[in-house]
């Protein structure tokens, strides 16, 4: 308990969900961005989660063989959504090609759903952290 392992695990969950929330905010903020430094409209970004095992590779393999506890979660990579851009008819836009403008592939509805997921997961990790903290405090009262 006092090696802070379960608190570290919950903290990794908090950090990962915070990062997810940042990416979602960035996607929503750029929902109408038609020009990027790379050229073309903004592409939505997707966060990929991966479980953390032990630090060294041998320990990791050994831990998996013994089915020991994991070490939390991490964001392994942030990749770009490869789904096609939306075409919107707007001949007055300076980015229009044959009257059509390529708009970002950010789906606001799915971003909002992801945002709720991230928020709920964050809350759940806070609760788990509180539980670990309370248990550590309880164990300090042993023998009093």
């Amino acid at each position: 308990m006092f090696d802070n392992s379960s608190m570290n695990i919950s903290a990794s969950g908090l950090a990962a969900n915070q990062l997810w929330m940042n990416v979602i905010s960035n996607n929503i903020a750029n929902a109408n961005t038609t020009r990027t430094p790379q050229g073309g409209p903004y592409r939505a970004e997707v966060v990929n989660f991966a479980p953390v095992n032990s630090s060294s590779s041998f320990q990791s393999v050994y831990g998996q063989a013994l089915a020991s506890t994991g070490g939390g979660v991490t964001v392994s990579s942030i990749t770009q959504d490869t789904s096609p851009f939306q075409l919107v008819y707007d001949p007055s836009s300076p980015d229009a090609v044959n009257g059509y403008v390529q708009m970002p592939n950010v789906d606001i509805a799915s971003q909002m759903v992801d945002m709720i997921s991230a928020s709920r997961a964050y809350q759940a990790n806070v609760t788990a952290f509180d539980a670990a903290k309370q248990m550590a405090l309880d164990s300090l009262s042993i023998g009093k």
Partner: protein
Amino acid sequence: MQIYAGLPLLFVMISGRNIGAFDEFVVCRRNIADFADGVTNRMDTFGLLESSISAAALRQQVYANNIANVNTPNYKRQDVAFETLFQNALNAPQAVPGEQHIPISNTTGTSSLPNVQPVVYTDYSTSVDNNGNNVDLTSEMSALAENQLKYETLVQDVTQRIQRVRAAITGS
């Protein structure tokens, strides 16, 4: 599986587990138990309570990991087996040192509680999401709350037992 250790071996096995500040308590407990052992056999109850507490601490870690990985693709939830293993060990017939036979059931009383370690296992029994994840946040949160209460109960039990020993020593 059954270990017929005397006090020192049991002590070594318990202190071999890294449970931090609890180790200091174990040292105190041994001193108390050295006093009390001749009369009461309290040693094994403390040992059992300590195993249960460390199982609850491990469970907290495992549930926290499940909650942290609630959105991780292909993650499978883990759980801790302890109570069932302990019950099985209690029911299993044990060989008695120095005797030529194995008794039909364990009727030796609390003086030889089996030393059972909690085991982490991967749970494939729950329904799997479409991203290969089988963590159900609702059940994890309720298991977490239940485990926290269990931990508090065990800590209070240990504390009150120590208070009773202290009352026996000091007479007040």
